[in-house]
């Protein structure tokens, strides 16, 4: 931990500019595997950060003394009296991000991020930086968690469109929790589609398709049987206006019994239909992949050039796709919720307690001679 | 005759009960052969110990006024006229004795009492 004190002109008119946290990284050419290159890049970033800061300070005539807190590529500009608090926040945030994503992953971050507290309302930020406002300065741990979540979101925003359309907005990239896995388990066992049933039964290819890990021209047929497609069309296909005007030959063909028309219709109306397993299932898969991949997994995901999402996630995890799917499936099945059916232990324990309590009632002092 | 007894009186309760029955027999209120109330009934009615009633009945039986028949109750016996007379006079003497002792306590002489008697009763006594 090092903090550099930057002496500046005093300006008492802007005391509200409190903790100014600047997370700065770059999106330029990311191949910094080796340390020297990485360090070089970081140094250049630092220089740029100084420039930005100078620009901000000049623009707003901030005269109060400002400290800089550095953690890896994280740089925070802080007001001296909040230095201790935000240094702690920076520590925790950095730890979280580093273990979650790997140190170099932060370099994926496509823009600068200012993080400032709610009372810094008069601050005008440079137009080229992302910003995040902390509404409440509470426990450092909570602030750091919010900050880390925000940075992850920003990172995901910086990824390519294919990945973002596969999973629009992951809640976080830390490892799969049991509650999340349990929710996915419910999806897995309740989805009525043939493909998911096959996946549940152990067909890994079916799992891959259910999770939308494959690419194909006719995605809809990759996911659903003809019968399922028809049912879907009948249930929700076409607007009233479309049908009234008979402008949808595929719709009419599909409901009339033409299987091909169904897939054509659904491929044209992709908003009507998604992959058989839900977005939360996909997110759980992503989390498993990142967890298996360990440090740097997100970087590998971003850099992978495999055509299908399955291949990219496999690259991120560093294991073959099917092993990854098998692993994911095991994790999900293991997260099955507690049984509704009462186990012997529970039942007998309850009865034992009943006996204990009945005995206590018998031994009450009221029944003995006082 | 089977009404209140006075537990505060120095005369024992059984004696009070027995003497009342005795007077009733002597006065002819209780005719021979008539049964006396059961011990249970009398004890409950007078709120006295049943043993007290039994004691009273025993005393009466010992004097020959009543006869206790096992299992069926207590019955008034035939009492001779002389016996009745003597019982009556005994009762009267007892009353007078009590009166005289009370008078003595108050410092009155027997003559005072006799004079009072005459005054109260008029010429009947003569």
């Amino acid at each position, binding site marked *: 931990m090092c903090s550099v004190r930057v002496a500046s002109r005093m300006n008492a008119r802007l005391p509200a500019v409190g903790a100014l946290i600047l997370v700065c990284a770059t999106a330029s050419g990311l191949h910094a595997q080796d340390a020297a290159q990485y360090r070089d890049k970081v140094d250049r970033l630092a220089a740029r950060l100084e420039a930005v800061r100078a620009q901000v300070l000049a623009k707003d005539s901030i005269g109060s003394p400002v400290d800089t807190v550095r953690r890896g590529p994280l740089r925070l500009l802080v007001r001296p009296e909040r230095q201790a608090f935000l240094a702690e926040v920076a520590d925790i945030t950095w730890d979280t991000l580093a273990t979650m994503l790997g140190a170099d992953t932060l370099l994926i971050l496509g823009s600068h991020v200012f993080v400032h507290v709610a009372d810094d309302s008069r601050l005008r930020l440079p137009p080229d930086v992302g910003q995040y406002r902390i509404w409440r300065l509470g426990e450092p741990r909570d602030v750091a968690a919010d900050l880390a979540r925000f940075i992850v979101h920003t990172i995901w925003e910086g990824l390519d469109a294919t990945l973002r359309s596969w999973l629009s907005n992951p809640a976080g990239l830390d490892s799969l929790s049991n509650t999340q896995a349990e929710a996915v388990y419910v999806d897995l066992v309740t989805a009525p589609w043939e493909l998911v049933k096959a996946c549940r039964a152990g067909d890994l290819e079916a799992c891959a398709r259910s999770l939308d890990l494959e690419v194909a021209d006719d995605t809809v047929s990759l996911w659903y049987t003809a019968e399922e497609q028809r049912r879907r069309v009948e249930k929700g296909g076409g607007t009233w206006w479309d049908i009234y005007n008979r402008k949808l030959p595929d719709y009419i063909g599909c409901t009339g019994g033409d299987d091909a028309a169904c897939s054509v219709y659904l491929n044209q109306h992709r908003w009507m239909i998604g992959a058989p397993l839900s977005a939360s299932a996909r997110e759980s898969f992503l989390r498993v992949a990142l967890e298996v991949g360990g440090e740097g997994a997100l970087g590998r995901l971003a850099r992978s050039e495999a055509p299908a999402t399955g291949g990219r996630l496999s690259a991120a995890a560093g294991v073959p796709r099917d092993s990854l799917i098998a692993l994911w499936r095991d994790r999900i099945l293991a997260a099955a919720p507690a049984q509704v059916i009462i186990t012997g232990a529970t039942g007998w324990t309850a009865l034992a307690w009943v006996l204990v309590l009945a005995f206590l009632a018998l031994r009450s002092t009221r029944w003995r001679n*006082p | 005759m089977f009404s209140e007894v006075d537990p505060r009186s120095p005369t*024992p309760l059984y004696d009070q009960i027995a003497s009342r029955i005795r007077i009733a027999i002597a006065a002819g209120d209780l005719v021979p052969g008539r049964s006396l109330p059961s011990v249970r009934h009398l004890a409950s009615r007078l709120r006295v110990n049943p043993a007290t009633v039994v004691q009273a009945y025993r005393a009466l039986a010992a004097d020959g006024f009543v006869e206790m028949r096992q299992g069926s109750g207590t019955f008034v016996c035939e009492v001779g006229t002389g016996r009745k007379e003597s019982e009556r006079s005994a009762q009267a003497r007892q009353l007078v004795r009590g009166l005289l002792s009370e008078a003595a306590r108050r410092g009155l002489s027997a003559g005072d009492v006799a004079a009072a008697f005459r005054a109260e009763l008029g010429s009947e006594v003569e």
Partner: protein
Amino acid sequence: MSNAIETRAVQRRMNKAFEIRDLALNVPSGSIYGFLGPNGSGKTTTIRLLLGLLRSSQGSIALLGRSVPADMPHILARTGFVPERPHLYAGLTIGEAVRYHSAFYSAWDAERAESLRRQFRLDPSQRVGRLSKGETGKLLVLLALAQNPDLLVLDEPTDGLDPVVRRDVLSALLDYVSQCGATVFISSHLVHELERFCDWVGVMDDGRLVAEMPMGTFKNGIKRLRVLDGPAVVDDAPFTLLAREPSDGVSAGEIWVVRDWQASMSQYFERVGASLREVVDLDLEEGFVELLRTFRSPNA
């Protein structure tokens, strides 16, 4: 079995100020035993000890020949108890309360219960919680008598009842006793009430049994004497002098309260040169008061 209740050296400390000490009760079988004592003298505590509701710290208690509290269920099956404070379930009607109570007694006499109910004019559909004090007392006595007990323990059964109810209750009690010959242990601070039917009395004061004797002895032994020219010091009298005070002022002499009196003792006064003017029998209440007076201040 000669004693229905027998306690030996029973001890029980209730609090700093009060304890039951050296309690040795002997209640002969078949007797009606009046358990006297002022309020707070330990009557109720003693009864609670007898019924196993309190445990004595020392000594032994036997009821009907069985030991307390080991044989309590057997004892209670043959003992009718009328507590000072009613404990019946307030939500039940009289009919239900009687029915509930009867379920626990094998010797229950339903006919007696019914005739007592009619005699006491209790309405079976009335709620126990709404009964007047007198009605509650009658109900408790009804329950105690209908279980055909060999021993009746009554804790102030007539306390706070009006004279009519009191008469009803006592009549029913004596009727039962003369019919079934049960032993009755009855506590009261209303002394004159017990006078007419008790054949034994025990007197409690301050947690101790002051006296226990047959009623006859108790009543005959205590007299009030009017004495003229009594000696200043009484040391060789054949009776016990309990109290000595000037007469009421109208009649001359002193009033002596004596115990263990017999008629032949009047010679004593002639011997010491005094004259005995009057011998007054004390009733139970007066005797009781005198007894307690000497117990509390033995030197008076």
